[in-house]
């Protein structure tokens, strides 16, 4: 058992009744979060990520399974008994209290002496670089400032775990980037355990130590950002995270973790994810657009000739989006999308070669 983890969910399920039918909001989820980790729950709306967070916070109680905090069962404990605080999507600052009173609230509830509260609030305001905002009301603050106050309030009584429910979604795109950096910095400084709910894959990839990708109430994959991006466990995860090219083919040879897959008559070398499928079964190959190398067909001295897979390609569409160009090409194995970090405009030309490593080409089940 992993009850020695800081947060441990043991086969937890949460049901909703909807017109006679029972619907699983969370289904048989088992998770262990270690102390000091930045752990993300990533999924689209309705995937169960927020319900999972609320089960840890104590706002919901599961029908099946147990929730452990610090090795103790807290499944039926109300939120005010758990050493866990939450930063809400809406920040949930108390509108009738000043910023300082908001931040002081957890201490006031715990009957901390007046002078100690004042000192701690002053420190918190300083730490979050808003020392002059103590007397303001929440509605007088910008979104970013409200976010900081919510964070300060949740951290002031030093919880064991901080739960964050899409804390950046209410912010403008420009400021979101900045606050994201701050959030990561706070987590590093305090060395606290963060459990972070988001639907934004970039956010999850950039911030997390580990990510649980959720769908339909279940954890689809759990791993480091690199694991999830480079070795998605299923077609769903591959489609959900980042852009990818998918090719249908038949597996014809297996050697170690390498496989040969026949796509439209062409043999492509690919990497196997365990377990190896039987020969002659249909599979899907996944290649990320940025792993495709584009070279002029004439250019035979190019550094791409050692790559295992090579197909000739015709450019059909190029889209310029600032830092990168997205190119769509037609090849013998199907249409492929590739991303080039490039300055020079690439014009439609009769012949290109697309090449990629077997390492970057993953074999996935058909569905």
């Amino acid at each position, binding site marked *: 058992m992993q009850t020695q983890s800081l947060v441990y969910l043991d086969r937890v399920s949460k049901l909703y009744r909807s017109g006679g039918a029972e619907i699983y909001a969370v289904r048989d989820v088992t998770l262990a979060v270690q102390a000091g980790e930045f752990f993300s729950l990533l999924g689209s709306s309705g995937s169960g990520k927020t319900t999972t967070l609320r089960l840890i916070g104590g*706002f919901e109680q599961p029908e099946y399974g147990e929730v452990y905090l610090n090795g103790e069962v807290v499944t039926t404990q109300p939120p*005010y008994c758990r050493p866990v605080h939450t930063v809400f*999507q*809406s920040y*949930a600052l*108390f*509108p009738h209290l000043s910023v300082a009173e908001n931040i002081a609230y*957890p201490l006031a509830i715990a009957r901390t002496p007046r002078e100690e509260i004042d000192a701690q609030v002053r420190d918190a305001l300083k730490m979050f670089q808003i020392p002059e905002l103590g007397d303001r009301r929440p*509605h007088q603050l910008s979104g970013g400032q409200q976010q900081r106050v919510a964070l300060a309030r949740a951290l002031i009584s030093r919880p064991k775990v901080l739960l964050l429910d899409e804390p950046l979604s209410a912010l403008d795109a420009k400021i979101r980037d900045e606050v994201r950096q701050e959030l990561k910095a706070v987590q590093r400084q305090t060395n606290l355990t963060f459990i972070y709910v988001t639907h934004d894959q970039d956010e999850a990839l950039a911030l997390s130590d580990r990510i649980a990708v959720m769908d339909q109430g279940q954890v689809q994959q759990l791993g480091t950002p690199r694991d999830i991006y480079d070795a998605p466990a299923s077609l769903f995860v591959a489609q959900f995270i980042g852009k990818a090219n998918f090719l249908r083919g038949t597996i014809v040879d297996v050697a170690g973790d390498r496989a040969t897959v026949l796509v439209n008559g062409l043999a492509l070398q690919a990497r196997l994810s365990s377990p190896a499928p039987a020969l002659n079964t249909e599979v899907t190959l996944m290649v990320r657009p940025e792993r495709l190398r584009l070279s002029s067909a004439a250019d035979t001295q190019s550094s791409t000739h050692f790559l295992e897979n090579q197909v000739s390609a015709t450019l059909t569409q190029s889209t310029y989006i600032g830092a990168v160009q997205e190119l769509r090409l037609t090849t013998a194995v199907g249409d492929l999308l590739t991303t080039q970090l490039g300055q020079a405009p690439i014009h439609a030309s009769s012949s290109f070669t697309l090449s990629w490593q077997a390492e970057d080409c993953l074999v996935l089940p058909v569905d």
Partner: protein
Amino acid sequence: MPDVSSPAIAPRPQRRPWLLGVWTAIALGFLYLPIGVVVLMSVNQSRILSLPFTGFTLDWYGLALADAPLRAALGNSLKVAAIATLFATGLGLLAAFAIYRYQFWGKTAFRLALNLPILLPGVVTGVAMLAYFSSLELGLGLGTVILGHGVFGLPVALGPILTRLGQFPTALEEAAYDLGARPVQVFRDVLFPYIRSAVVAGALLAFTLSFDEVVVTIFLTGRDNTLPMEIWGRLRTNITPEIAAVATVILTVSSILVVASQRNSAPPSA
């Protein structure tokens, strides 16, 4: 900086809705004038309740103030309104919480039933209560009037509280729980501050309703008169400027209460 020396095309004048303006004037006049007439009569020297204006005087207000039965009626009205308001607001607060917090069998019926007293004809509910109280052998008097007004005031007080509770962001409550507050503390520190002004608004409305009510009062009172009843009784026999003065006072007080109630209806800035 761009050159702002554009050819100055004069801003087009906005089309003004003249027809509408005239309509507005008529409508306002039609609604306001009758009331204006009463106010005017209360400060008119003429003994009979009529125009034209013969001279300004406050004598009728003095006369009304010195009138013992009117003062007794005012006392009764205030007593009834105060107790009925307490009753209506207290029960309204409880009912609002019940509706907000719990899912229970018959909830929709409960909400509809709470609104019944203001939706149904006063004559019918008046008769109904009279028959009911009689069969319970409750002696008619200010006590039964208070009960009746309380029942009528309940939906009026409930309305603003329920509306405000509906706007209450659940996240605030959850945040307080999350930060360590127990249920009683959550109510005291977060929920009640949020709905406080709505409770005041509801109470003011219930008070106004009770202070102005006639139809049900007639059925439920014994020998004690409330102020509108007393006025009414006198109107049937003899319309005097003294009554116009009392009406003006009631009008003013009611208007102040209603405006104060509406002021309290805006939710706290979030």
